[in-house]
């Protein structure tokens, strides 16, 4: 018995065949397990491809993802300031919830970043009532005691939105800033540390 070609089966699955051609294919499929299996394989593949269109994120969201990297992109010629991506070493969001704990207001999120021998501790408190967040943190170096008077910036949409400097013990704070996606950068003599930590959806 001649089997149905994969191309014919694809046309059949897609409904791109005439009624006259459909009948013999269906008769064959009812009798031939091998072709019936191939039909299922093709059907599943086509369904998966069709479903994938609904998995396409909106173009502006993809652009947002692309722009996320901009603070880290090095100029093509002679970067004057070394840029360091801080690694996230602790995040309360990654911690499992305690059994039996019920929701009691919006909890603060605590994060710890590390770049070289510098640690940046950040705490984000979200205020649902006015759609604002308060961000406090501390820049600590293992080699020196405290990193005081260090510029710290909150950047979004390609510009610096808020600026401050660390106090005597390396602490900084941004009080009640509008919720948004920010890059937090810390300017040190050895380079600029960039953190990606403040996001309207996960703070």
């Amino acid at each position, binding site marked *: 018995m001649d089997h149905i070609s994969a191309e014919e089966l694809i046309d059949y699955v897609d409904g791109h065949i005439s009624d006259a051609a459909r009948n013999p294919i269906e008769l064959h499929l009812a009798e031939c397990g091998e072709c019936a299996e191939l039909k299922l394989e093709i059907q599943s593949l086509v369904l998966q*491809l069709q479903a994938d269109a609904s*998995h396409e994120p909106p173009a502006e969201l993809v652009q*947002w993802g692309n722009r996320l990297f901009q603070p880290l992109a090095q100029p093509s010629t002679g970067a004057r300031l070394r840029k360091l991506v801080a690694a996230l070493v602790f995040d309360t969001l990654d911690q499992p919830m305690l059994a039996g704990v019920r929701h009691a207001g919006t909890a603060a999120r605590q994060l710890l970043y590390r770049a070289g021998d510098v640690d940046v501790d950040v705490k984000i408190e979200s205020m649902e009532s006015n759609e604002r967040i308060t961000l406090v943190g501390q820049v600590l170096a293992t080699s020196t005691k405290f990193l005081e008077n260090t510029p710290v910036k909150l950047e979004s949409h390609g510009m610096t939105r808020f600026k401050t400097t660390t106090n005597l013990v390396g602490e900084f704070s941004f009080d009640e800033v509008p919720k948004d996606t920010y890059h937090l950068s810390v300017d040190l003599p050895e380079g600029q540390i960039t953190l990606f930590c403040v996001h309207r959806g996960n703070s």
Partner: protein
Amino acid sequence: MNAAKYKSLGDPELISLCLKGDSQAWESLILRYRRLIFSIPVKFSFSPSDCSDVFQSVCLRLIEHLGELKDESKVSGWLITTTTRQCIHVRAQKRRETSTEDEFEEPTDPAENVETVRIQTQAEQNVREAVEQLQERCRKLLELLYFDPKDPSYESIAQTMQMPVASIGPTRARCLDKLRMVLRRRGIREK
């Protein structure tokens, strides 16, 4: 390096370039995995706004963890786990926000469902990667037919592909068959 060259690079090469500050490498990574990331909150039946929030959170996490991922041959496994966790977190947060003190909240074990999502997401990613392995013409045709959000007409596809409308059907059948063969060669059969 042009976009096609970036597209041909493996995940470790792209991550290594990202860590050197190459923004095009980052864009290629996002392009490669955008549908994988977005498909998971869709599977959790999240609203478009929650799907976007999850997508943004995962992009942020990917940047934060680039250094740890530089030796991973495939980022897809990490992304599936991270995105699924983020979805579970969002779902739990929403459940807590809407439940009242009087309600008895039955703890749920989503493990089985999560495993289904993981297997399905990986299978979809295998198909996407197989599409990437097809020759330019086939890949372009399948992308226009199945992935283009504008859902172009056959006439428009024929114009873009510079082929007669009548050839689209047979060419599509040949390309799908090639795709099936690529998946078989990689030891993956769609069932």
